[in-house]
């Protein structure tokens, strides 16, 4: 048996000729070959061939072509490796004339899942913010178009998890859920039969809530420090989040963008006379305090 490759120019030429053969064979003796109408991907099968003498057999599939010399009157064995790709196939048999017949290869049982989970980070308590989409494939990576049950298991770092069963449509199953109130990792698993894929969403704190700054004068300086910066669910904003301090005194305005470290943001500034101090995190504003500088 001789296998051909799609990457070779010569093979393309042959393919074009086969296409012509195929067209002619349809007109010739199409009723002589009787392959099964549907075959599962990767399953070997045989086709009875009437007549006697030598002949040439072609199998034209969606991703490759097979050519083989055969003896008419015996069964044609189609190997499993020749029908791995799902799709429409054509068998062609030529002796003095050509005959052909189509058959369909369908995906086998689910064996792989491609699981997309978005986003990889999500603020807590956000409705419909987590999307999971699973593509169901067989062992040859054919999309399984027949409905298959996909179980999504959502397991937060704290609190109870939950599961959701979805039937795939045209090879795709998806679900959408809310983020929970607590920051941390949420593991989402998609499973179909014995196949399972796990992904992780990082739930992060939402916008700052009740942002407060306190000012502690020390000599000519004033130390500004926030209370632990949390969102409205009580989650601490991650270190590195920028807090903007603004001081307005008789010399003008002073601003410092300083990152949160260990839950709080802290900076030290000199003030001249009475000063008004405010704090903000992104577009969220906090409280204002007044201090009397000694300079």
């Amino acid at each position, binding site marked *: 048996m001789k296998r051909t490759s799609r990457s070779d120019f010569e093979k393309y030429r042959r393919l074009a000729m086969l296409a012509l053969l195929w067209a002619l064979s349809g007109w010739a003796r199409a009723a002589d070959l009787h392959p099964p109408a549907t075959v599962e991907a990767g399953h070997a099968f045989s086709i009875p061939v009437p007549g006697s003498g030598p002949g040439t057999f072609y199998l034209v599939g969606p991703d490759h072509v097979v050519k083989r010399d055969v003896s008419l009157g015996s069964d044609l064995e189609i190997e499993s490796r020749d029908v791995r790709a799902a799709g429409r196939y054509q068998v062609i048999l030529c002796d003095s004339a050509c005959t052909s017949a189509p058959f369909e290869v369908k995906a086998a049982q689910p064996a792989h899942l491609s699981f997309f989970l978005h986003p990889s*980070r999500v603020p807590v308590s956000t409705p419909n913010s987590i999307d999971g989409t699973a593509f169901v494939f067989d062992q040859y990576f054919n999309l399984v178009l027949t409905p298959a049950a996909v179980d999504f298991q959502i397991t937060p770092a704290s609190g109870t998890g939950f599961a959701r069963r979805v039937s795939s449509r045209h090879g795709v199953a998806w679900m959408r859920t809310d983020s929970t109130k607590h920051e941390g990792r949420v593991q989402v698993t998609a499973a179909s039969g014995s196949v399972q894929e796990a992904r992780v969403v990082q739930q992060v704190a939402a916008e700052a809530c009740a942002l407060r700054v306190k000012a502690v004068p020390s000599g000519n300086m004033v130390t500004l420090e926030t209370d632990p910066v949390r969102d409205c669910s009580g989650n601490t904003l991650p270190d*590195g989040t920028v807090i903007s301090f603004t001081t307005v005194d008789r010399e003008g*305005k002073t601003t410092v963008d300083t990152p949160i470290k260990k839950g709080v943001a802290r*900076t*030290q500034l*000199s003030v001249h006379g009475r000063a008004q101090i405010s704090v903000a995190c*992104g577009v969220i504003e906090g409280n204002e305090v007044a201090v009397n500088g000694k300079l």
Partner: protein
Amino acid sequence: MKWGLVVFLTLATLVLVAIAWLQSGGVKQHTISSAATPEEAVQALMSNLQAHNFQQAYDSLDRSSDTDIASFIRDVAGSDGSLRTYSSLQSADVSPLHADPDQALVRVRMNWSSALGSLDDVRDLRVRRDGSVWRVVWPKPAFPAVPPQVLSVNYLRWEVIGRNTSQNWGSQDVDSPKVRITSMNAISRPGRVVILGEVENEDTIPAYLNVNATLLKTDGSPLDEEGSFDLISHVLLPKQVSPYRIDFPGVRMDAVKSVRMDARALLVPASADPVIAVADQAVGKDGLNRNVLKGELVNQSGRPVNIAQVLAAYYDDSGKVIWVSDGYVDQALMPQVPVPFAVDIPNDIAERLKSYRVIVNHYSRTSN
């Protein structure tokens, strides 16, 4: 015939000596030694600085100048990898402010060219008569020094582990940061249209950000597309807000039907340090009577910042961004040392501005 050759050789020698004198800066030296006016003395000094003849420039200073040559060179040529060290003096405008028989005050506006644009340095120099010539009195530069100390810095840093390209389709990956344009304002300026506003990194990770704008005609086709280039803080830490400005030179506002904005963010490794305070900000006038936003930058971290850029957003009384301007600081920001800055404000903007906000872009030679 014999005397003719002698005369010829003598004349040729004199011509060659004269050429050599001219080429070696004899004219400038003569100008210095014969600076008959205070302006000429300052001009001669600037010529030497322009030619990087720091020794000659230093030698031309008045003896009462209380500075050594190392400090003088550091003062005019910069140090610590600052922007001034990458600059050269392009031109100097000299104008007398006050003159007495023995001393004068001269204002010099030095224009330094750098890869990041031109920088102005305006100084008022005292000039003294020394016999028949005038000499510049160069004040001793004050370089603030921080006492030797050890600063403990537990800075934050984000690293990125990307997806392995050999992994299957659909494998776990990390999303790009989420950024949001919080405001956008299109204004008409002489000879151009300007798009400006602010953008926020809403995410919990740093973002490398580019903001682009496309001007659309009435039929919906693109008229022009530009990016914010350096008028933005490209690296935004979580919840940080940056102003941006996009200029469209040669475009008239009446040709624009709408604007399409595009903010693209990439996930990049970044450091939360250095923290730079912008102190004593105030709107005022500079030595050339221009409206400026002045203040001081204080590097609160332990490592020098070589090049700093100040970005300022100006708001009207409704809180709308009406202008964004920037300015590079030609001194390095040494730890804890205040460094002054000033950024220009157009006159019409200065009349309307109600408040402003300043952020600082920084570049350090040492990797973070």
